[in-house]
C-alpha cells in the first residue's frame, strides 16, 4: 500500500480530531468548556479547509476557511461566552440520558454513518473522499447532543456544531459549496445565534431558568 500524500494525511488527521472533538462535546458537561471545544472544532475545520484549498489550489476555499475562522472561532464563541457570563449558567448538571449511554449511542451512529458513506466515498474522486463518513458522523453526534441536552445553551452549541459537520461534509464531498450559499449559511448562523440569544433572555425572564422543560407548558391543552 503506497503512502498517502501529505495533504491527504493532514486532512485525515483533522477529520479524526473533529470526530474526537464531537465525542468530547457529547461528554462535556461544563458549558464554558463546551464553548472552548466548539471553538477548537471551528479551528480544526478552518485548518482542514485551508489544507484542501492548498492541495487542490482552489482559491475560494481560502476565503471560506477565513470566514470559518472569523465566525466560528472568534465571533460565535465570544458571543456564547458573553451570554453564559451574563446569564450565569456555567454548569449543566444532568442530561436526559447519562453520559456512558450517550457515548454508546454515539458509537452506533458513527458505525452507521461510516457504513452509509462507504458506497459514496468509493464513487467520489476528491482527495477528501475518505472523510465523508466522519463528517456525517459528526453531524449525527451533534444532533444527538441537541437531543440529550436539557438546557438551552448546550442545545444551541449542538446546533452550531451540526452546522460545522455539514460544512465539513460539503468540503469533503465537493470541495465546498458555492460562495453565495456559504455566505448565506454563515449569515444564517450568525443571525440565528443573535435571535436565540434574545430568546434566552426572554425564556429566563419568564421562567427564572434556562431549563427547557418549562417550555412543555406551552403545549396545547388537552
Amino acid at each position: 500500500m503506497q503512502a498517502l500524500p501529505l495533504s491527504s494525511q493532514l486532512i485525515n488527521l483533522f477529520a479524526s480530531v473533529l470526530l474526537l472533538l464531537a465525542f468530547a462535546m457529547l461528554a462535556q458537561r461544563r458549558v464554558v468548556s463546551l464553548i472552548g471545544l466548539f471553538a477548537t472544532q471551528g479551528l480544526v475545520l478552518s485548518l482542514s479547509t485551508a489544507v484542501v484549498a492548498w492541495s487542490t489550489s482552489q482559491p475560494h476555499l481560502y476565503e471560506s476557511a477565513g470566514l470559518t475562522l472569523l465566525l466560528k472561532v472568534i465571533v460565535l464563541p465570544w458571543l456564547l461566552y458573553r451570554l453564559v457570563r451574563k446569564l450565569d449558567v456555567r454548569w449543566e448538571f444532568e442530561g436526559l440520558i447519562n453520559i456512558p449511554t450517550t457515548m454508546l449511542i454515539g458509537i452506533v451512529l458513527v458505525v452507521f454513518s461510516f457504513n452509509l458513506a462507504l458506497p459514496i466515498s468509493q464513487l467520489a474522486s476528491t482527495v477528501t473522499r475518505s472523510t465523508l463518513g466522519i463528517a456525517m458522523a459528526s453531524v449525527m453526534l451533534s444532533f444527538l447532543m441537541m437531543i440529550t441536552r436539557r438546557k438551552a445553551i448546550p442545545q444551541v452549541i449542538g446546533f452550531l456544531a451540526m452546522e460545522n459537520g455539514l460544512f465539513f461534509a460539503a468540503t469533503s464531498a465537493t470541495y465546498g459549496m458555492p460562495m453565495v450559499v456559504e455566505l448565506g449559511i454563515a449569515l444564517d448562523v450568525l443571525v440565528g445565534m443573535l435571535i436565540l440569544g434574545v430568546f434566552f433572555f426572554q425564556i429566563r425572564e419568564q421562567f427564572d431558568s434556562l431549563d427547557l422543560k418549562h417550555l412543555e407548558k406551552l403545549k396545547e391543552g388537552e
Partner: protein
Amino acid sequence: MSPAPLALIGFAAAAWLAIGAAGLIRPRSLRAVRTLFSLGSVLGVAIAVVACVALAGSPESAVLPLGLPDLPFHLRVDALSAFFLLLLGSATAAISLFSAGYFRSGSGTAPGLICFQYHAFVAAMVLVLIADDAYVFMVAWETMALASYFLVTTDHRIPEIRRAGFLYLLIAHVGAIAILLCFGVLQGGHGDYTFAAMRSITLPGWWGSAAFFLALTGFGAKAGVLPLHVWLPEAHPAAPSPVSALMSGVMLKTAIYGLLRVTFDLLGAQLWWWGAIALALGLVSALFGVIFAAAQTDMKRLLAYSSIENIGILVAAMGLVILFKTNAKPLLAAIALAALLYHALNHAMFKSLLFLATGSVLHATKERSLGKLGGLIHRMPWVAWLALAGTLASAGLPPLNGFVSEWLLLQAFLFTPTLPQSFINMLVPLAAAALVLAVALAGYVMVKFYGVIFLGRPREPSLAYAQDAGGFERAGLVALAAACVLLGIFPATVLAAIDHVTSLLVGSQASGGDTSWLLLAPLGAERSSYSPLIVLGAIVGAVLITIQLVHRMWHGRVRRAPAWDCGFPLQTPRMQDTAEGFGQPIRQVFEPFFRIERHLPSPFDAKPRYSVVASDHWWHWLYLPIARAAEAVARLFGLIQRGRISVYLTYSFVTLLALLLFVL
C-alpha cells in the same frame, strides 16, 4: 400615438403605488389622505383613457427587468386586458373620489394605511390584467388578495370582522392553489410559464379539461361561484363601503378576466360540454344568489348576494359563448361574449354605486340593518336619487345599462335551438327561463333594497338627524350614476368597443357590422332591435304627459296628512312593511333553498321577540364537514405533540436516519 399604452399603464400603476406609499408618511392626516385619493382618482381616469386607446390598438408586450434572476416580468396589453383596464380605471376613479370623502379616523386602521392598502390593491389588479406570464400573474394575484384582506379587516377589533377576513383569505388561497395548478397544467411539461408559450401548445387529451376546471375552480372562488361563494356575504359587510365597491365591482371582474383569458386565449381549443357545465353552474349561482338576496336584512349582505347573482349570470354567459364557439357559430358566440363583457362593465358601475350609497347611509345613520332604516329620501336626497339610478340599473330596467346587457344575453339564449346537441337544445329553454327568473327576482330584491332604506317613514327616531353625503362622496356617486345612464343610452358605441375583444377571442363581431348608434340590432333589425333613445323618449314623454294631466285635473288644494294612515289612528313607523316581511313570500316559495331557524315567542311572553335566521345549506353540507375533518386530523397530530424540544428533535433525527437508510 407616440407613448405606448402599455408603458403608460405601467407608469400609472407605479404612480398608484407611490400615492399609496405617500399615505404612509402622515397616516393620521385626513387632509393628506384626501388629496392622495383625489390624485388616485385622476390616475384612474387616465388609465381608462389609455385603455380606450389600447382597445383599438394592436397587442403590445414588454419584458421588465424585475423579478427573480432568469425570470423577468412579462407584460402584455391586448383588447381583452384593455377592456378590463377600462372597467378598472373608470370604476376606480369614481370609487377613489368617493373614498376621498369617506375614510375618517376611527378605531380601525389609520386612514393613511388604508390609503396604502387601497392603492396597492388597485395597482395589483392592474398588474393582474397586464401580466403575460404565470409568475407575474400569481404574484399580482396574491398581492391583490392580501391587500384586500387587510382592507376587509380594517375594523379588526371586531371579532366577526376578523372571522370574515379569515374566511376570505382561506377561500382566496384555495382558489390561488387551483389557479397555480391550472398554470402548471397549461405549460404542458415544457417548463415555460410565459403566456406566449402556453398559447402555442395544445394540451393532449384530458389535460385541457383539467386546466379548464382548475381555472373554473380557482377563478370561481375569487368570483363567488357556487359552492365557493361563502366568503362574499361575510367579507362585503365587514369591509368599508368603498372597499366593498372595489371588491364587488372590480376584483370579481378580474376573476372573470382570468377565466376568459385561460379559456379563450391560453387554451387553444374548447370542448362543448365545458360550456354546458359553466352554463349550469352560472345559472344555479345566479338563482341562488338572488333568492338569498331577497331574504337578507342587512343591506350590504343583500348586495353581496346580488353580486353572486350577477357573477352567476356572467359565468352562464361564458358557458353560452363556449357552446356557440365550439359549434362554429361565431356570430352568436360574439353576441354572448359581448353580453358578458357589457354586463361585467355594467355590474362594475351599478354595484359600486349601490355599495357606495350604502356607505353614505352607514356613515349618516351608523346602521346596516334594513329593519332600522327607512324614509331616508327626505334626509339624504342626493344619495337617494343617485342610488335610484343604480337600483334601476341593477333591476334591469330600460333605459339604464343593466337592461342592455341582459337583453343581449337573452338574444343569445333565444338562438340556442340551432345547436346540434339535441339535449342541450331541450334544456336551454329551461336555462333561459331560469335566467329570466333570476333577473325578475333581482328586480324584486332591488325594490326591497330601495324601498326599505329610502322610502316610507324612518323606523328609528335617530334617523331624523341623518346628514346627506359630502362633496367628494356626491361626486363619486354622480360619476357612477352618469356611467349607468350613459352605458344604457349609447349601447352601440360600447358594443363597437367590445367588438375588438370579441374579434380577438371568438373571431366575430357582435354588432353585426351595423354601425348605427341609435339602434341596437345584433341579428338584424327585422329580428329584434332595441333603441334606448326611443325608449328614453317614450319614458320622458309619458312622464311629461302625466304631469300635465295631473296638473290639469288637480284641484290645487294641498292637504298634509299622515302617510299610510289606512283608518288606523294609532300607528308607528314600526307598522310599515319590513325587510323580513317583504322577503317573506320568496322565503316561503323557495323554502328548500334555505336552512331556516325560527324563534317564535310564546303567547305569555312579556317581551316577545321574533327572530328568523336563514342560513346557507352549503355551509352545513360542505364547509362544516371539511372543517370537522380537518379538526379531527389535527387532533390526531396533536397526539405526537409532547411539548418537549428533545422529543421533537428525536422525531426529526429518526426521520433523518430512516431517510438515509432507505435512500442510500
